């Protein structure tokens, strides 16, 4: 690991750039405590510095608090409605969504929804501030202070309820919109760049300079990217033409404003997977802006985004910076987030880059704005650690460590540091650490005014205001992010103006606070691996967006990319090669590529397999549950050890993309561990309970006998092992019949299972023709239960075969098809919806049971959503699933392909075509189907599920929501449902009425996680219980009851 203090060694920045680059990526998820120990010496002050900082910060805070104007409306509002209160969250939600809703009905409903559920009244008397007490609602509802009626005892009356009740909904909507605009006004400098330049003059007179940020979401389509490009271009022109002659005394008033550029707005696919496009066409776009900016004399700053894109952004930055158009300029800068564990070596690399070229790099150091989503993202993906620090004081410490480096002599002249912070202690620290004045501070427009008015007065330092420019409508999602960053109780801004908070509490040095912690990492935020606490280990995922991880991961997979596997039936631990039919398996995306040979079992093997399974059953049933569970946990570990080979098989046999393959293996691992835990819970101890006749009953569970597990090709490892591991953990022996298309990976999984200690008799593998083997298996009386995932038709055939046995019914657990819908209303965020729709409908080429088939769009937003969907589909990369750049791989085989193409043909005639993603030129080497979308009039037009990347879109009127719900229910299927709405009443209404097994709100509707989102449908979609849920394993057991008074044993023989 990089030794942080080396950074001050003479000559450190003179190393080859590539050496410094090597230091960055390995720190992505480095052990937090170990790395913080490295960083602490860089941040920790000596006694003299500590004293100067404390004194400086104390003075600053005293002065700010003495300033009458310090508490602005927003500060006061934040103080009262902090985001850990129910009302604060509702308020932010209203702020985020209200202004983009085009139709009055939905807007009114949202207002009603947010006003009805929380205790707003309590806030009226909570604050010491007269301003908050008097204006809480006045501010929001009317934009001006409303006079409160007082009760006789002097307490305010129930003003809100009266206010809300008295006013009609359209009036409330109007004033709410007005209030949102007032909030917007606080944070947006101007709706256009011209307005911003004009509004900025008063602050420039005071000595501030500006950096303008054009508001907007990341672009999802080329059209949006073009629009943002034009916005930037025009902003640069306007700033270039600005003729402000500085009146102010400060340094800043004389410096020209700069423009901040959000790269994700300039390209719809600014992602590591699309590196070629980013470093090619996207780079050219940014260069155009650079040339224009340079000619106009306007500096450019590249904004920081998510951790996954850090390394890509640096590569792009280097390419742009070293381009001849940029050389010699010195006004091309970027933003670095100090909460990133990689920040320090990134700064070193940038300093060396600048030194090697001789052009200064302006660099804004921020703490970082995506902290919560970074943490959540890593937890979801089961990554090895976090890219950010988990304690606030650790981020503050890292910020100071970075600042000390940026202010050091070796960096001086190469990087022009711009310290963005609203924290008085941070500002005081920077001032105390600096030995020169070649740096500036930055603050957000609308925040930190009082603090920096003081700093600019007392110091010869430039202060730049970072100011959003754009529509108020676009501001609000951004505003929520900024408020989140600053609004939590722990935030300095929040406490700076809170008179209740003693100054001494605000001037602790973060390095001292951090050092005083027993553990440097935050013990309240478990690592992704420990998400499930002591119960079980979370499955491990890899982050292929990060160079260091991706390189070692790729090295694990490569050895198996040319392997040719030989597989066949496994009976009693032996691979069978007699009386078999050899099948040749090729990759679905390239039929020239041989994956291997699989020997199919014949009907004659069925009896043999059943005999071994029957013979092994009693001893496996009576094996202690702990032994069974441990074997499955060993299997989980073996799956992770063999990650590389299983990845290659997921690619080559099943046509899965990189991320899909990772998810597949993770799910299999989770199933093994989850059912091991479930078996221990249900089967370790007998349960005693009072019986209805006042005796006491003891109930024990045991396996039922032989289970047949029939699994599909779309989750060839996860569902395959999910069924088997539950059956085995419960004490059954198993005959596994994998899908014809994906038997090799199943074969390897069974080999690993035997290696893990599952006895040879307990698990039999019969690959082969489903019709032949399935019929032979399910008609045999020795079979005590069947677990099946596949089509509804096959499920019915299995059910018949089982019922025809002249035996009492046995458990039949079937997971079958779906006709999955998503309903979105006009409160949704279009960018988020389109992203989730594309993933839900087209990821895995739509070959998921859960995949979205019918999108219901409220008419009022359809003309915004549908073009955006069309644009996003144009950007989907279909092709070889081994490659990181591929979003959509092949469908499984020719039968699937021709069925889907026929449906597309039918739709071309009867429906309105929306879009189709482009296919690669060599698509005919495999079985590809281009993601395609059509508009239709209703779900009732679809008679059967199309198991592939085909999406149907239906427009609906908001008052017809219930009809939509009825039509979804009338399909008879009930697997997944997606909902996008900010209105919780609407969400509740839909969830209560739609009969679906898995409902997802404000997210995509695929990728259920074991034990977190138990999966399975109802009606035509399946029997239950849900896979990965607490009742699944029990269905594989029978209960043995004994009554203590009579000491008789009865078996629950029922199915």
């Amino acid at each position: 690991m990089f030794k942080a203090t080396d950074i001050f060694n003479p000559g450190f920045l003179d190393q080859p750039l590539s050496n410094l680059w090597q230091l960055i990526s390995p720190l992505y998820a480095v052990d937090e405590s170990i790395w913080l120990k490295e960083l602490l010496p860089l941040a920790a002050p000596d006694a003299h510095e500590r004293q100067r900082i404390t004194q400086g910060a104390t003075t600053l805070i005293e002065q700010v608090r003495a300033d009458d104007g310090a508490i602005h409306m927003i500060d006061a509002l934040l103080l009262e409605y902090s985001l850990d209160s129910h009302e604060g969250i509702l308020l932010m939600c209203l702020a985020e969504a209200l202004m983009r809703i085009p139709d009055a009905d939905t807007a009114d409903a949202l207002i009603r929804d947010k006003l009805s559920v929380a205790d707003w009244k309590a806030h009226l008397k909570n604050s010491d501030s007269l301003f908050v007490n008097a204006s809480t609602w006045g501010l929001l509802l009317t934009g001006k202070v409303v006079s409160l009626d007082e009760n006789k005892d002097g307490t305010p009356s129930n003003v809100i309820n009266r206010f809300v009740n008295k006013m009609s909904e359209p009036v409330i909507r109007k004033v709410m919109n007005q209030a949102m605009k007032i909030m917007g006004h606080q944070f947006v400098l101007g709706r256009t760049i011209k307005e911003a330049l004009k509004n900025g003059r008063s602050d420039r007179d005071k000595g501030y300079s500006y950096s303008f940020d054009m508001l907007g979401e990341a672009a999802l389509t080329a059209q949006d990217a073009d629009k943002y490009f034009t916005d930037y271009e025009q902003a640069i022109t306007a700033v270039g033409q600005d003729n402000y002659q500085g009146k102010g005394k400060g340094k800043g008033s004389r410096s020209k404003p700069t423009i901040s550029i959000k790269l994700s707005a300039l390209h719809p696919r600014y992602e590591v997977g699309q590196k070629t496009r980013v470093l090619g066409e996207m780079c050219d776009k940014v260069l155009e802006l650079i040339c224009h900016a340079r000619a106009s004399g306007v500096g450019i700053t590249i904004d920081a985004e998510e951790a996954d894109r850090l390394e890509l952004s640096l590569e792009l930055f280097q390419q742009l910076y070293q381009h001849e158009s940029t050389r010699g300029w010195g006004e091309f800068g970027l933003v670095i987030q100090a909460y990133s564990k990689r920040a320090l070596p990134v700064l070193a690399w940038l300093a060396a880059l600048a030194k090697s070229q001789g052009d200064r790099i302006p660099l804004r150091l921020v703490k970082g704005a995506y902290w919560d989503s970074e943490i959540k993202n890593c937890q979801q993906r089961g990554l090895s650690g976090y890219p950010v620090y988990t304690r606030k004081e650790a981020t503050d410490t890292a910020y100071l460590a970075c600042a000390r480096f940026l202010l050091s002599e070796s960096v001086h002249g190469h990087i022009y540091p711009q310290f963005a912070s609203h924290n008085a202690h941070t500002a005081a620290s920077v001032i105390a650490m600096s030995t020169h004045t070649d740096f500036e501070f930055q603050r957000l427009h609308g925040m930190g005014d009082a603090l920096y008015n003081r700093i600019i007065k007392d110091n010869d330092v430039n202060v730049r205001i970072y100011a959003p420019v754009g529509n108020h409508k676009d501001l609000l999602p951004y505003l929520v992010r900024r408020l989140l960053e600053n609004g939590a109780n722990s935030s300095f801004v929040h406490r700076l103006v809170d008179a209740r908070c003693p100054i001494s509490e605000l001037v602790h040095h973060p390095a001292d606070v951090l050092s005083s912690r027993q553990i440097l990492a935050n013990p309240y935020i478990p690592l992704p691996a420990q998400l499930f606490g002591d119960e079980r280990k979370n499955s491990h995922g890899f982050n292929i967006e990060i160079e260091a991880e991706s390189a070692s991961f790729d090295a694990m997979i490569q050895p198996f990319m040319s392997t040719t596997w030989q597989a066949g039936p496994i009976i009693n631990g032996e691979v069978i090669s007699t009386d078999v039919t050899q099948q040749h398996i090729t990759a679905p995306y390239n039929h020239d590529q041989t994956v291997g040979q699989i020997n199919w079992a014949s009907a004659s093997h069925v009896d043999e397999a059943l005999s071994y399974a029957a013979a092994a059953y009693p001893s496996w049933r009576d094996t202690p549950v702990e032994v069974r569970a441990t074997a499955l946990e060993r299997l989980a570990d073996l799956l992770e050890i063999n990650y590389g080979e299983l990845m290659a098989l997921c690619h080559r046999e099943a046509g899965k993309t990189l991320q899909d393959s990772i998810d597949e293996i993770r799910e299999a691992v989770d199933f093994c561990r989850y059912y091991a835990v479930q078996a221990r819970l249900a089967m370790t101890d007998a349960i005693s309970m009072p019986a209805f006749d006042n005796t006491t009953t003891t109930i024990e569970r045991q396996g039922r006998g032989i289970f047949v597990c029939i699994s599909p090709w779309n989750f060839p490892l996860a569902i395959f092992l999910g069924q088997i591991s539950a059956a085995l953990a419960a004490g059954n022996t198993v005959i596994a019949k994998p899908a014809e298309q994906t038997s090799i990976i199943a074969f390897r999984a069974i080999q690993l299972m035997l290696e893990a200690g599952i006895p040879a008799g307990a698990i039999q593998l019969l690959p082969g023709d489903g019709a032949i083997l399935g019929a032979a298996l399910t008609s045999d009386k020795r079979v005590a239960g069947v677990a099946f995932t596949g089509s509804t038709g096959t499920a019915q055939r299995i059910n018949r075969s089982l019922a025809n046995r002249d035996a009492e019914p046995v458990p039949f657990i079937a997971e079958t098809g779906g006709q999955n819908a998503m309903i979105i209303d006009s409160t949704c965020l279009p960018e988020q919806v389109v992203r989730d729709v594309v993933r839900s409908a087209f990821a895995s080429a739509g070959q998921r049971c859960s995949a979205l088939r019918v999108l219901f769009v409220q008419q009022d937003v359809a003309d915004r959503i549908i073009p955006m969907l069309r644009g996003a589909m144009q950007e989907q990369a279909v092709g070889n699933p081994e490659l990181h750049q591929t979003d959509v791989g092949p469908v499984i085989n020719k039968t699937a392909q021709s069925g889907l193409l026929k449906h597309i043909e039918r739709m071309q005639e009867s429906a309105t075509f929306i879009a189709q993603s482009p296919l690669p030129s060599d698509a005919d080497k495999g079985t590809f189907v281009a993601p395609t979308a059509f508009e239709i009039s209703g779900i009732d037009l679809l008679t059967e599920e199309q198991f592939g990347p085909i999406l149907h879109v239906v427009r609906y009127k908001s008052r017809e929501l219930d009809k939509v719900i009825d039509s979804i229910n009338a399909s008879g299927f009930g697997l997944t449902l997606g909902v996008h709405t900010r209105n919780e009443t609407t969400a509740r209404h839909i969830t209560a009425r739609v009969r679906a097994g898995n409902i997802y709100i404000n997210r995509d509707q695929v990728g259920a996680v074991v034990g977190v989102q138990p999966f399975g449908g109802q009606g035509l979609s399946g029997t239950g219980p849900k896979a990965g849920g607490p009742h699944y394993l029990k269905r594989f057991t029978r209960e043995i009851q004994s009554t203590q008074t009579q000491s008789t044993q009865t078996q629950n023989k029922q199915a």
Partner: protein
Amino acid sequence: MTIQTLDNAVMKAESAWEAWNALGAAARIVQLKKAAQELNQPLVNWLLNNVAASMPDSVILPGPTGEANSLNWSGRGVICICADSAASDTAAFDTAIAAQLFTALATGNVVIMQTVDKYAHQLHAALLNTGIGDSIAQLTSASIDELSRHEGFHAYAFCGMPAPLITLNKTLSQRNGVLAQLISETEFETYPTLTSLDYPWRFVTESTLSVNTTAVGGNATLLELGGKDH
């Protein structure tokens, strides 16, 4: 019984299901307990108590911060309470029928009950007397064969001997549409099915609700943890 009459009954039941299911277990059980008072069936009371105690409406599941996951359950829909008439003349059998009926209702299903004997009428009357609507629990004179061929039923709760059970299972498997659950009791001395832990769960279907809480106002929980003083 004509097919049309049975169709009508199923449609009537289907239209009553949503509201009955939405009542929630606790409210349903309050009503059902009143009806059970008239019947003096300890097994019924025991089952109602079990459902109330062991089947919480919603269970919170673990997961990443910023996401709320819960597992909920509801009734499967329309359930046919049916029996093998040859076995139906004992009190022990009546108890089993009552247990199936009350469990089906308590778990959020609406029922159509075969009038195998007088006791069915008595059960039905007890339910109506406590104000449970006649579309929630209906009686039918249809034969078991007719009932088992009707695709409107989501599950069958059967009491009887093994042989007719096997026949019923065969007939059910011939249906198209939903794979109907068959919940059967064949032993009327010890009721191994009716007294098993898993029994009431057979009447329900689970649903998972996953909410991205960060979409509505940000990941406040996580932000709090990040700044937690300790």
